[in-house]
Each structure stands twice: as structure tokens, then as C-alpha cells.
């Protein structure tokens, strides 16, 4: 079983994910941000499933390892879909929705083919390795897409406060996650570094919950103030 601090972070993260869904229902925005809600509902479901498997079979069991990697890949996929839904929202007024969805599917297929190409030589546990590789590559694609999305928001002078803050929180999450991933590879001997990933996992539902609770759908920003250097 994971340590008490790790378990506490896990429960906190799950509670925050649930809090986002509850707040979005309370603010009558569940369908408006359906894919964001779907991601958190899947995350809560995965947490419950992982916990059940963990308590039945133990942390070092094959069952837990399979459950962990497959649910992780599923969640990364759901987050990717949520990101694309934000893209569609930003570009919605320009009737680019169809092209955004088509590009997203092509990019996903490309990432899947690339991931398969990387692990094709391996003989053991091909499907688990594929799930892991796909998850890692989709995270990288997600970071790049969030960066592009932020550029689009600035260029189009987006004013919707909720949308802007959702995208910025996602950018912060992807960047911090990539930094923690690199840090784990650089200095994995420090226990605190291994806890950074799960802690960062709590930040996305926390910031999104605050955003959906604090801002109404009608809240607007002054777009000129979003760029650090005035143009």
C-alpha cells in the first residue's frame, strides 16, 4: 500500500475532482463543459477502481500494474479530448469546429502509430508498454497544443474569463508535470520529488473548481491585459 502522505494526496485529488463536477452542476455548466466533467468523472472512477484492485491484490501485483497503466492511458486520452473541446470553444465562432475535430483525430492517430513504432521491438507486455508510451507522448502533445491554444487566445483577444483561466490552469499543469517528470529522472532518490506528480495532479481540479465557482459564464476580461508585453 502507498504511504500515508501519498494516500492523503490521492484522496484529496479525488475529492477535488468530484468537487469540480459538483460545482459545475451547481453552476448549471455541466453540459457546457461536458468533456472537462467527463475527464474528472473518469478520474474519480479510475481512483475507485485502482483503490479496489490495490486493496485486493497489492501494489506489486500484475493486476494493479495493468489497471494503473490502462486507466492512466484512458485518462490522458480524456484530457486530450477535454483540451480539444477547449480548442473548439475558442475557435467556435469561426466555424472551424469540423477541422479542429478532424485534426485532433489525425494527431491522435499519429501519436498512437508513433507510440506503437517505439515499442514494436519489445516482446514483453506489448499492450502495457503501448499504454504507457501513448500516455507519455499524449502528455507531450498536450503541452504543445496548450501552448498553441494560449497563442490563439491571445491572438483572437479572447475575453471569456472562465475559458481563459481553464486554459492557463491547464498550461500550468502540463508545464509543472513535465518539470516534475524531468526532476524524477534527475533526482529520483529524494522521496519528496516522487510525491510532486500526485501533488500537481491535485492542482488542476483545484484551479478549475475555483474558476468555475468564482466566475460566471458571462464574466469577461480585458484582453489587452493578458499579454505580458503590451503590443
Amino acid at each position, binding site marked *: 500500500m502507498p504511504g500515508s502522505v501519498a494516500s492523503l494526496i490521492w484522496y484529496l485529488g479525488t475529492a477535488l475532482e468530484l468537487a469540480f463536477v459538483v460545482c459545475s452542476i451547481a453552476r448549471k455548466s455541466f453540459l457546457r463543459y461536458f468533456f472537462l466533467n467527463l475527464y474528472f468523472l473518469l478520474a474519480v472512477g479510475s481512483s475507485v477502481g485502482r483503490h479496489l484492485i490495490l486493496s485486493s491484490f497489492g501494489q506489486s501485483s500484475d493486476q494493479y500494474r495493468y489497471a494503473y497503466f490502462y486507466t492512466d492511458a484512458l485518462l490522458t486520452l480524456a484530457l486530450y479530448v477535454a483540451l480539444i473541446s477547449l480548442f473548439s470553444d475558442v475557435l467556435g465562432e469561426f466555424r472551424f469546429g469540423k477541422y479542429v475535430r478532424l485534426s485532433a483525430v489525425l494527431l491522435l492517430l499519429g501519436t498512437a502509430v508513433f507510440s506503437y513504432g517505439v515499442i514494436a521491438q519489445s516482446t514483453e507486455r506489448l499492450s502495457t508498454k503501448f499504454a504507457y508510451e501513448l500516455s507519455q507522448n499524449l502528455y507531450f502533445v498536450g*503541452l504543445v497544443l496548450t*501552448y498553441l491554444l*494560449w497563442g490563439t487566445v491571445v491572438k483572437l483577444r479572447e475575453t471569456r*474569463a472562465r475559458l*481563459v*483561466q481553464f486554459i*492557463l*490552469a491547464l*498550461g*500550468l499543469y*502540463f*508545464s*509543472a508535470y*513535465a*518539470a516534475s*517528470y*524531468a*526532476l524524477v*529522472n*534527475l533526482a529520483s532518490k529524494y522521496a519528496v520529488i516522487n510525491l510532486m506528480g500526485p501533488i500537481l495532479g491535485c492542482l488542476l481540479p483545484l*484551479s478549475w473548481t*475555483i474558476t468555475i*465557482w*468564482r*466566475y460566471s459564464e458571462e*464574466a*469577461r*476580461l*480585458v*484582453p489587452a*491585459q*493578458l*499579454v*505580458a*508585453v503590451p503590443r
Partner: protein
Amino acid sequence: MMAALIFVVSLVTLLMFFVSYCRSLMASSARHTLSREVRDVTGIPASASSRDFVRVIQLMRLCPERPQDRTGLQAVGLYYDILGLIEKTVARVLPALNMWTEQERAGCANFAVVLLDRRIAFSREIIAQQGEF
């Protein structure tokens, strides 16, 4: 080597998103018109200067806290500190950067004044509610 490179690049993007996040918090309060009370209390006529931030925060501590402002204030406070660090180090040799940090810190102070205004209004509401009982 690759991990170190990813670490540096992700730190740069993290900083960029953090700056934008703080600016979006500040932009959300840009349209707020300051009340006469807050202008009298702070002595700030229209917009705050960078040095006003600490004083406004001290005034805020005298009012009951609004839970919905806590995280925004923490993020902008951290942004203000980072800007202060830049001002004391790199900006000393780059005048353009010094001007930019000064503007940004003034933005942080303006955000704090808006929060103080909301806290004063919140305190009034609490007092009015207590008066009803």
C-alpha cells in the same frame, strides 16, 4: 542531459503560464470602479503605485477575509515577490526591464486595492446581517 533540458524548457513555460495566469486574475478586476471609502482609506486617488501593495495588504488584514479571494491573492502575492526579486537583480542592469517590473507591480497593487474594496463591502454586509438579528 535530456531530462535537464526538459526541466529547463518546462520551467520556462511554467513561468510564462504563471505570469499569464496572474495577469488574467488582475485583468478580471480591471473594470472594477473603486468606491469612495477605499480611496479615502488608502489615499489612492485612481490607480496604485508599486509601493502601495504591502500597505494595502496590511489594510486587508484588518477586514474579514473573503474565502473566494484567497487563492487569487496568494498567486498575485507570489508574482509580486518574483517581480521584486527581478527588480533587485536583473532589472538593475536593464532599464527597460526595470520599467516593466514597476508597471507589473503597480498592477498587483491595483488588484490588491480592488480586493480591499470587496472586503470592505463584505464587512458592511456582515455588519448589516448582524444588525437584522
